[in-house]
């Protein structure tokens, strides 16, 4: 019995070593299964059990899959839209999507599982939210700060930055995910019925809460906002918009945000600070041209905002 345990430990240690070296544990164990299992003296049952343990470990090391990010994002957006109702201004929404897609196409993550989609919310506060996976909401109050298409693009580019960098997913408490992973790794996972589904749903709810609470109440860290701003400048420049529009937008917001506001005033760093940090980055970017070409369609699409 002790001998079997020793062998078991040895194989597990070997699997850990390979995992640390960047190999996929399951791949290693499949290899193990492929060569004569009897040769190193562990039974089929033990190998199965070993595979499960290793798989649970592997899950803890990998990211949330694109499909799971999609379902999380849908739920986050569904909660946000219950709080901030969608506007039915179809022309404005169409315009937002054209600008948004123009920018997303130039991002380092041009496609997501369900794609990027943009919607206008009817609230007067200065707000914009990015749910994981690319569902982006912009408030009417935010659009009212924009004097041209480039400023709208600056807002969307910042939100695409949060999606590209997966900031939303990083707001989920790590212990929630590890409990989901271990749940999936248990013996019961094979017959995942009502209790397992209920537990997984509760982990899902908790994860949604973590993301929405961050978006609506606490805000991201300064580092994440800085990262999204930097991505925004890059996207604006790549697409041919004026990167300076982000600074113009921040200056406009600075004048409009009220100190005790429940919108960007609460969840984002002071615009003046963001401007100070971004200014040096602008020097290396082309200033963009053709604003005049975009003026007419901006006025037409957002006239009723």
């Amino acid at each position, binding site marked *: 019995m002790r001998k079997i345990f020793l062998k078991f430990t040895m194989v597990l240690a070997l699997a850990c070593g390979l995992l640390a070296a960047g190999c996929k544990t399951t791949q290693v164990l499949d290899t193990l299964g492929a060569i004569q299992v009897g040769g190193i003296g562990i039974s089929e049952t033990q190998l199965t059990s070993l595979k499960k343990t290793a798989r649970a470990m592997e899950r803890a090391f990998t990211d949330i899959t*694109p499909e*799971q990010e999609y379902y999380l994002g849908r739920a986050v957006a569904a909660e946000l839209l219950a709080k901030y109702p969608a506007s039915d201004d179809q022309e404005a929404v169409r315009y937002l999507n054209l600008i948004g897609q123009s920018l997303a196409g130039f991002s380092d993550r041009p496609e997501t599982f369900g794609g990027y989609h943009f919607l206008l919310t009817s609230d007067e506060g200065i707000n914009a939210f990015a749910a994981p996976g690319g569902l982006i909401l912009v408030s009417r109050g935010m659009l009212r700060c924009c004097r041209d298409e480039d400023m709208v693009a600056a807002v969307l580019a910042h939100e695409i930055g949060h999606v590209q960098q997966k900031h939303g997913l990083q707001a989920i408490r790590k212990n929630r995910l590890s409990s989901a992973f271990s749940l999936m790794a248990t013996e019961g996972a094979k017959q995942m019925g009502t209790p397992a589904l209920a537990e997984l749903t509760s982990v899902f709810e908790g994860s949604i809460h973590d993301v929405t609470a961050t978006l609506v109440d606490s805000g991201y860290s300064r580092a994440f906002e800085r990262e999204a701003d930097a991505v925004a400048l890059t996207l604006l420049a790549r697409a041919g918009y004026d990167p300076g529009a982000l600074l113009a937008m921040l200056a406009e917001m600075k004048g409009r945000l009220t100190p005790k506001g429940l919108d960007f005033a609460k969840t984002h760093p002071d615009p003046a600070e963001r401007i100070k940090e971004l200014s040096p980055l602008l020097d290396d970017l082309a200033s963009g041209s053709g604003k005049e070409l975009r003026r007419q369609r901006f006025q037409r699409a957002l006239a009723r905002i």
Partner: protein
Amino acid sequence: MGRTRIALIFLLFFLASSAVLAAGGWRSVSVRQGALRLSPMPFGKIVASLPYGERVEILAEQGVWFKVREESQGLQGWMHGASLLDRKLTLRPGETVGPAASEDELALGGKGFNAQVEASYRAGGRRVDYASVDRMEGINVHADEQRLFLRQGGLLAGEEERP
């Protein structure tokens, strides 16, 4: 016994490392509609749209773009590297992680947040507006309309027409 064990450990390391190297040749599409483009650039003409989990063979690499051949029909084109995963995905979207799922599907396909979990979450009576989310996902910009928007706005439209 001792020698057999050492030999086996060496064999294992060899097999594992060669498996990882070989895995570089194939990737899986990690998005629901992965654009297979004629040229390696944003808004390049779309040859086909590949589904989540589709296996593609890597033929060439150019910056963030990969020239690939898809498995089912042998179509070739360029895909952005961010839309590809270097592991196999066995679960297709919409399939549930229920009693029918095999152990391997669980391991490779999903950690559990899927349509089944969404349905269970929605049944919980929370204040959510999924109707607007569905409407939002239904907004799609056609490639031609997108190119026209870029061109008319004096924006960089890629150079998809270049031979």
